[in-house]
């Protein structure tokens, strides 16, 4: 009889998760990368595949690094927020199109607007591995020396932006 109990056991665990899922909101996650240099990459630009960008090119700037994809539903939630932020111009946003077809990604930017200074294409997700990306969207704040100072998992909300990211940006820009 024991093995016939397995499905029930799995189901109970599932219900536990579903129950918690009904209540909890996403929270900030500690990342082992905070305080460490942003992992290096050299990737082609979405706008022009002949050109490349690497974090070293952005030394001396405080910048946001946003990992997204056209197939990611929750990325669409944060898209508006990022668009507003890019219009205010407080901090430049660079995107990484993660495991995606460049054509699809470009279509999303055409359709919903483009908040990014540039987007690099991580076709096979190899650069993403170094950043510990386990799902999109993820957003990193990187300082003038190329050190990761903050990581946000999930869609960036107005609240996260005003309470965490922007104050930190101001501090780092001084």
């Amino acid at each position: 009889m024991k093995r016939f109990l397995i499905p029930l056991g799995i189901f109970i665990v599932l219900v536990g998760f579903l129950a918690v899922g009904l209540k909890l909101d996403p929270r900030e996650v500690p990342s082992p990368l905070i305080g460490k240099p942003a992992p290096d990459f050299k990737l082609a630009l979405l706008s022009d595949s002949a050109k490349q960008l690497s974090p070293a090119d952005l030394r001396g700037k405080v910048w946001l690094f946003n990992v997204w994809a056209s197939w990611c539903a929750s990325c669409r939630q944060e898209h508006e927020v990022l668009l507003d932020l890019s219009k205010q111009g407080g901090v430049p946003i660079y995107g990484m199109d993660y495991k995606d077809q460049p054509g699809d990604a470009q279509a999303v930017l055409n359709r919903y607007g483009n908040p990014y200074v540039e987007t690099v294409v991580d076709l096979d997700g190899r650069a993403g591995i170094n950043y510990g990306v386990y799902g999109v969207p993820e957003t990193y704040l990187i300082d003038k020396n190329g050190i990761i100072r903050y990581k946000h998992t999930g869609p960036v909300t107005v609240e996260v932006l005003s309470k965490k990211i922007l104050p930190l940006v101001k501090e780092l820009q001084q």
Partner: protein
Amino acid sequence: MIPELGHFALILALLLALVQSILPLVGAARNNPVWMSVAKPAARAQFLFVAIAFGALAYSFLTLDFSVVNVTRNSHSRLPEIYRFTATWGSHEGSMLLWTFILGLWTMAVTLFSRHLPEDMMARVIGVMGLVSFGFLLFMLATSNPFLRMEMAMDGSDLNPLLQDPGMVVHPPILYMGYVGFSVAFAFAIAALLSGKLDASWARWSRPWTTAAWSFLTVGIMMGSWWAYYELGWGGWWFWDPVENASLMPWLVGTALIHSLAVTEKRGSFKAWTVFLAIGAFSLSLLGTFLVRSGVLSSVHSFATDPTRGLFILMFLLVVIGGSLLLFALRASQVGLGGRFALVSRESFLMVNNILLLTATGAVLLGTLYPLFLDALGLGKISVGPPYFNSVFVPLVTPLIFLSGIGPLARWKQVNVPELAARLKWGFGASVLVAVLLPFTLGEWKPMVSLGYLLSLWIVVTVAIGVRGRMRTSAGWSANFYGMNLAHLGVAVTVIGVTMVSNYQSERNVRMEVGDTITVQDYTFRFDGVKDMVGPNYKGSRGTLEVSRNGKPVSTLHPEKRIYTASGMPFTESAIDYGLTRDLYTALGESLDGGAWSVRLFHKPFVVWIWIGAVLMALGGLLAITDRRYRTSRKKGSAKA
């Protein structure tokens, strides 16, 4: 007045559902024929009142009764008449009513077409279906009353533009026919566990019901995928969206169930396993409802959501699925394992089929719920998309499709391997040869294309061998046999469509000024500009694209960009020239400066084959149901283990 009647009818249906479940179930346990005999009339009366409620809601929508909250939120005085009717199930409340209505339809069908069922079996099946219906009615009355009134509103806020489409008139009812149809197999399984009698006749009763539900679900999913293709304006046919996964998971388990039912009926094996799959298929239907309705997952096409409803459905899941699995744990060991079979036999092929299908379901379930697990653990809201699903799903489905060629040719109990190999070697050789060479004629050789061709040709060849073998032995007409082969051919057709479109599709995303031409494959698209247009409940821009091939006109396409006036929602309406070997797909992007537009142009080879294949699968299922065997009396033809 009419909405109140509908509301009242729902309350009466709730009470009748309680009667329909308790009396027959207790009656069957105590062997009380009078209590058992309540099942049929109670079920029919319950359906009558649910139908009245459904009619009342449809009436409120058709007459634009804006004193009903549901109507105000999902309709508009300018909404075309056909969509006013569709709006009946365009909302959360309405679609729950549709769910219950369809459950009633299936219960009615059981009362009508299962006269040959033993009294206690019938009482239990209808009783279990009554319990499910009770849950849904209670859910509606407690959290989602479709007849809720308010102060008369001036006008409504319109139906979601995504749903204003002819496909949405038929897609949800057919999809639900499939979803809810698994409740019959579920009820049969629970009845079998309760009675402790699980023999071949049990499998034979539930087989046609399961196949019917599966066929509806196949068509429902196909229509959903087609709708996503032409309506979302992105040019894809599957997005691995949680809502799509919610219908794919019961389909996968349902497919496994159809195959394991065959073993249980023919050989008496896989009994406990079959019961488990029957519980699983319906449980995943319910889970899908929870995922779509509760808002725990974000989806491209999610509807209005509400956590209190989620809590109710979760409790309901806990009672129905948890209760069933508990019953399964308590009783399954008594069901027994059935006939023995050798390592290489049709049984073992079907076992591998079941394992692969269940693994695929598990992978989809994990991918769908992984974001939720992370969220529940406080690790953030993320999406898991096509990169995960494609890399997990394709390797599981490839051997599955390959096996579906061999399985039907293998003997029960034990396969004579050399004999089978001799029968298949020419077919296999020919499939490999053609599969390797054919892609060269398409310009570029790609390994995935050859693999796709191989799988497809392999099915065609093995079906031909099987059918020829059958004709030679003159075993006579068997709807079941030919239905299976037709469904397998459908898989072959779908595989061709998927292979071609994923490997040879061309897409151009371009800026076009009036008079510009762009060539995609052999087709030249000329942009003739955009005109303003006014629809019944929207304004917009209508583009004109002249398509020609080698100087000869092919088609004129009019993709649109619409703004729905009531909601202010912008919307892309693609224009497609359909063809058996290719679709030309166009969509308008943004308006750019100087009268130019960004335009998306796709050439999609063989994309309709994906859906034609699905239709063949469903037709195969429907053909199988007509098999004489399902209509003969229960005494004859029960298999011996």
